[in-house]
């Protein structure tokens, strides 16, 4: 029996994505900066290291005030081993497309977990 999920009335949405995606969602009001100037987002560009992405992912998935983590799929591919190993219900990890990298169901970690019931080919082929 799994541990019960703690309820939260004002949980945050964290983001690990490119500049335009993060800017867009910040315009939608999800940006949060605490007293220690810690943000709930990480902007990934060409200079961002894999270690920085890993640290941000680990931080966002262990914070109790975050309920959903949005991560661009191409960024998730850089830390695929970490994303696939993650199996907690909260925060929910959602892989989203980016401008240059459209969403690929075959790479989605959630669909990879359920692929044993059928092949990913049958999932991806009908969606292209």
């Amino acid at each position, binding site marked *: *029996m*799994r541990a*019960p*999920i*703690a*309820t*939260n*009335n*004002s*949980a*945050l*949405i964290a983001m690990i994505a490119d*500049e*335009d*995606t*993060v*800017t*867009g*969602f*910040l*315009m*939608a*009001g*999800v*940006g*949060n*900066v*605490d*007293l220690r*100037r810690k*943000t*709930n987002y990480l*902007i990934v560009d060409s200079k961002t290291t894999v270690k920085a992405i890993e640290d941000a992912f680990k931080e966002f998935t262990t914070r109790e005030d975050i*309920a*959903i983590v*949005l991560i661009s799929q191409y960024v998730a591919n850089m830390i695929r081993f970490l994303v696939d190993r993650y199996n907690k*219900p*909260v925060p*929910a990890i*959602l892989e*989203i*497309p980016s*401008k240059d990298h*459209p*969403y690929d*169901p075959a790479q989605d970690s*959630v*669909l990879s*977990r*359920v692929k*044993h*019931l059928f092949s990913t080919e049958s*999932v991806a082929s009908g*969606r292209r």
Partner: protein
Amino acid sequence: MGLWLEPNSNGRTYCSSLSCNFRNLPQVQLRSRIVDTPISNRRTEMTMERQQREEEKKPQTSENDKDEKVVQFLDSLNDYLTLMDSLSSALRQGWLELASARHSMGSWRINSAILDHKFHSASTTLQLSSPDDSNYNMKQPHFTLRKWESCDDEDFQSKEVKLDEDEVQKNSDDVQVQKERSKTLLVFGALVSPKLRDAQLSFETALETLVDIANRRSVMLSAYDHVREEILGTKQ
């Protein structure tokens, strides 16, 4: 010397020996080996038939449950993929409008460097609840989006007082939401391109879709776990 009529697992009657009291068992056909003849004792036959029917019903009921779980899983999977398509469309729209706004306002006005790094709370948050699933021991989270919530407590109190005036309250809510939206765009300057406001709305739509996706994901993973348990239970 008595006659044994013992139905074995195949429902056949085995005449273990012969009896000299043939009058008491007029329907028995005396043979020395296992035969598929009608069973003399009709009660025994009826009991066996009833037992067989009950055994047939049990697999059917459990099969129906399994089918229902599989259907639930496939439905949630289909919804998940459909919502991902909608999300891609909303994001594409948002990126296009953002690029258009950047083109008209200038790239120096719309970039990550001017983002607000001072202390501020998120205006759009999530309500995380855990609806109790009485059939199973696992609980799946449920996410609800709360857009543009005012941090000012006085505004909330004033909304509660005007409960009887629905239209006035609705208008005040809309005004409040518009204020919050404009306040968020102040980072980019007092006067912003209409395309930037359109981009803001597109990303709000994308956010709503993402919350739906998160809920569908929870349902899908929960249904998958149930189906997997059924499959593992069947194999054992």
